[in-house]
């Protein structure tokens, strides 16, 4: 059984040790901003002149219909996709104009949790999580081992060092992927659908883990999700993509929005929940 995040005292210590290494950040500043970005995949226009921003040190959730470009925003921020026009600013750096070397430097400040985990199949859990540290070559094997185990404990995965990703459950896989994403102490964490395919209990644990990491490490988080309940529970800031329009606000502002399309978007989730309850 996966231990609860709050049960893991060693894990908390691991996270706090990481937090001490983080530079203090000021809330209210924008960590990431998209400025009039246009993006197409072949003939299909994903978005046109899209602008939005993500506050530093906060949890931002990106919501929207299928194909609205939620995951594309994360890929643009990480430099995995190239915008046709506009600027993608991470801090003061425009990702769209960075060379490969510049991108590599920028990505050391970013962590990304992919939907399927994106762990290397042929590497064990330990090797996957140790990979970023080994590649940086700044630590000896003993230090790497200590840090990897502390981070795995922090995300609630212990005694799984030698397992391969294919031997893990969905929840454990996401936790290991999360450990790999945060072990390099990124300033910004990008999460692509971290709750999809998980059972409700595991979703709550994953939510708690992300909130804990955000609060203790003051890490900026940008999360793509379809889960409206999770969004209201954990979001400090919401970016809603609707029919090419961007609507931003806090969870409270979204919940009580008078805009018809926003009210309709959020009511759909509650309607289904109500219908399920009635059945």
């Amino acid at each position, binding site marked *: 059984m996966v231990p609860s995040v709050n049960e893991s005292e060693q894990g908390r210590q691991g996270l706090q040790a990481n937090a001490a290494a983080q530079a203090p950040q000021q809330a209210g500043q924008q960590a990431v901003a998209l400025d009039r970005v246009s993006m197409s995949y072949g003939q299909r226009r994903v978005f046109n002149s899209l602008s939005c921003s993500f506050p530093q040190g906060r949890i931002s959730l990106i919501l929207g219909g299928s194909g609205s470009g939620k995951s594309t925003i994360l890929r643009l921020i*990480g430099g995995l996709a190239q915008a046709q026009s506009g600027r993608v600013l991470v801090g003061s750096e425009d990702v769209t104009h960075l060379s490969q070397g510049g991108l590599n430097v920028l990505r050391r400040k970013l962590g990304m949790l992919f939907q*399927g985990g994106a762990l290397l*199949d042929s590497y064990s859990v330990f090797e996957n999580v140790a990979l970023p540290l080994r590649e940086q070559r700044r630590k000896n094997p003993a230090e790497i081992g200590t840090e990897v185990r502390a981070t795995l404990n922090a995300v609630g995965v212990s005694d799984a060092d030698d397992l391969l990703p294919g031997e893990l459950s969905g929840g454990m896989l996401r936790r290991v992927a999360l450990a790999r994403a945060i072990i390099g102490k990124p300033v910004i964490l990008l999460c692509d659908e971290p709750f999809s395919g998980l059972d409700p209990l595991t979703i709550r644990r994953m939510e708690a883990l992300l909130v804990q990491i955000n609060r203790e490490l003051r890490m900026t988080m940008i999360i793509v999700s379809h889960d409206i309940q999770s969004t209201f529970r954990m979001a400090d800031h919401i970016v809603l993509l609707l029919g090419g329009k961007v609507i931003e606000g806090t969870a409270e502002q979204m919940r009580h929005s008078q805009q018809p399309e926003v009210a309709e978007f959020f009511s759909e989730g509650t309607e289904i929940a109500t219908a399920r309850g009635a059945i």
Partner: protein
Amino acid sequence: MANPISELGYKALKFVQALGNLAAFTAAVAWAIVRPPSRFGGFVRELYKLGVLSLVIICVSGLAVGMVLGLQGYHTLVRFGAQQSVGELVGLSLIRELGPVLTALLVAGRAGSATAAEIGTMVATEQLNGLRMLSIDPISLVVKPKALAMLCSTPLLTGLFVLCGIYGGYVVDVGLMKGDPGSYMSGLRSAVDFHNDIECCLLKAVIFGTLLGLIATFRGYNSEPTSEGVSAATTSSVVISSVSVLLMDYVITALWGV
């Protein structure tokens, strides 16, 4: 009329673009090979997967080809009273042509397809993007050990194929046809020249290994991130590798001089 012509033009452009991409990919792999880290652990792991796990198929195929050559050669040569030349025929055929070419085709089918499928799956499951987000170059970590292992294992497997083939010819000539063992071995020794035959065989094996490594990794690396894309990359890797090996075999043979 415009449609077939524009289609032809489109395909020609795509072909030129693919050649350009392959050249850029080759340069990136070469750059990754000469700069640290060496990835020795990954190289040894790949050498085992691509080389050691191919041993059985190479030995069995080499033996079978040598036995067929021995049998066909004996029945043809005996008509001219030259059955003592079976060793010469088997040795020269295997060392000059069949050894390097058939080994390369077998490696393309077994190890090349596995390599393209593995890298293609890594593309489809975003493992390579995961590495990029960790500031790790996928060409250095994933492609370099596989391409180098293919380059190093192909000449070794070729040597093994040739040895097994010569033994297969010996078994048929001496064991089944009651030929003279001394004639078989002396014919082989006198016919095979180190510079003309062994060096040419090794050169072919090295060039084929380089081609196989590059084509398999390139096709996997550039596959569409879908199951259909992985399947297409695997198939095209085998087809392109096989045709390239056969064409290159002719070019090397013609340049080297027969």
